[in-house]
């Protein structure tokens, strides 16, 4: 047995978009053990968000820029639960459309990121090219590219007009063949498949033990999808969770790829459901009581717990982000793999450190 080597992977590393540190103990090329260090992005959002609930819906988006719209939607749902508000149907459908658009941008980023980690620069660029289509669409819908600020407590801030509805339909029509082309590459390209299949396996039992959610859980055979609960307009559109059994990097990539196509389906299904009507209802008074908001963010279940005491300042706001439970299992996926695969495995869980650390 040779002597082991300790290698710090990150916090600044070409494969990572964000600061994340994995402390690797190597036996020659093989990873013997891995320890994850997080906290580089901890800003203290739970403290800041509780200071003034009227500003929270905008600050909540700043928790994470990749799933910002889901954060504000979860926050709004939690506060609406406290007030006992019924959100107008049109607002719920608009929320669903923006949430699915954001899922597309997030998944295309994750797919591009995995292509980059594998060393397939070209495919990374292609993913980002398709992603830019959705980014520009979202910019037209909301006026912003990253923090949409469309959700408010009681509904949405901006209505969609007929021209915008047509525009969304056109973009989806343009996007679908491009996504199908991407799917063909991710599913069959021999380099990609060799670098991802059988790598970083998370078994179903491990996925359950580590409380994983979202694509990571679904790639390990756990059929969990909060959208089936029917928040926003997911009770009227068809939600068909993508579930795979392998639990490896390939499965996680393909789950995201197929979900992109399902998102396009859902957006197209939402558009004819839009009926004339109000997009927001008024709210009165400070929130008093406990509320929970649960949405399926691109990385999995996102939960907001809010306790208000009838004051401007909230008593407690707790965010359980999907990355917080999805990132730690890399510690058990890494041992036994080769050093070259470390980046691929870590990126395959779609680590979002700003969500993890808050």
């Amino acid at each position: 047995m040779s002597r082991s080597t300790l290698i710090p992977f990150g916090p600044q590393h070409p494969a990572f978009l964000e600061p994340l540190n994995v402390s690797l103990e190597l036996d020659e090329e093989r990873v013997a053990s891995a320890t994850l260090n997080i906290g580089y992005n901890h800003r203290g959002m739970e403290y800041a968000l509780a200071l003034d609930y009227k500003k929270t819906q905008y600050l909540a988006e700043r928790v994470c820029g990749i799933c910002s719209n889901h954060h504000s939607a979860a926050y709004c749902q939690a506060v609406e639960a406290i007030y006992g508000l019924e959100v107008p149907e049109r607002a719920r459908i608009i929320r669903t459309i923006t949430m699915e658009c954001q899922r597309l941008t997030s998944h295309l980023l994750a797919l591009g990121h995995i292509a980059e980690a594998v060393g397939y620069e070209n495919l990374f660029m292609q993913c980002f090219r398709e992603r830019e289509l959705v980014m520009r669409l979202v910019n037209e819908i909301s006026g912003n590219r990253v923090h949409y600020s469309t959700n408010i407590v009681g509904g949405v801030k901006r209505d969609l007009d007929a021209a915008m509805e047509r525009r969304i339909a056109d973009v989806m029509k343009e996007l679908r063949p491009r996504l199908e082309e991407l799917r063909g590459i991710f599913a069959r390209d021999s380099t990609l498949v060799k670098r991802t299949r059988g790598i970083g396996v998370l078994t179903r039992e491990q996925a359950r033990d580590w409380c994983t959610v979202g694509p990571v859980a679904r790639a390990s055979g756990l059929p969990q999808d909060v959208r089936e609960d029917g928040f926003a307009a997911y009770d009227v559109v068809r939600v068909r969770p993508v579930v795979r059994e392998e639990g490896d990097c390939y499965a996680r990539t393909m789950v995201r790829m197929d979900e992109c196509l399902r998102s396009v389906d859902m957006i197209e299904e939402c558009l004819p459901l839009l009926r004339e009507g109000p997009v927001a209802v008024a709210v009165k008074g400070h929130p008093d009581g406990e509320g929970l908001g649960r949405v399926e963010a691109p990385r999995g279940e996102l939960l907001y717990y809010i306790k208000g005491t009838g004051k401007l300042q909230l008593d407690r706001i707790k965010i359980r982000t999907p990355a917080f439970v999805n990132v730690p299992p890399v510690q058990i996926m890494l041992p036994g793999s080769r050093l070259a695969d470390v980046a691929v495995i870590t990126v395959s869980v779609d680590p979002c450190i700003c969500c993890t650390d808050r």
Partner: protein
Amino acid sequence: MSDDFDRDAHRGIRDMARGMKESGARLITVIGRDRGDDTIELVYMFDQGGRLVDHRFVVEAEQEVDSISDLYSGATNMERENIDLLGMRFKGLGPGLLLVPGRSVEAPLRKRPEEGA
């Protein structure tokens, strides 16, 4: 410090978690909330086949609480987060997940007297 809670209730945390695990429930999170009187409310939130189930315990802030990280590996970070942000103590776990000891403020989510309860 108020007396409206059962001081020994927290001994049931592990039995509760074991029962939930056997029923196939998924642990969502462990929420700690400062009640403003040196006691902390712990909410263990589970997903049982799509249904949300919560179990609540009130503990003294200085109390060492049993960890459930051997039952749910994913609970480790949830409990360590409470150690960092609320200054709690869990058996067998240490601080330093999110904060830098010595440089960051200690227990930022605890209510300070000047802020009022």
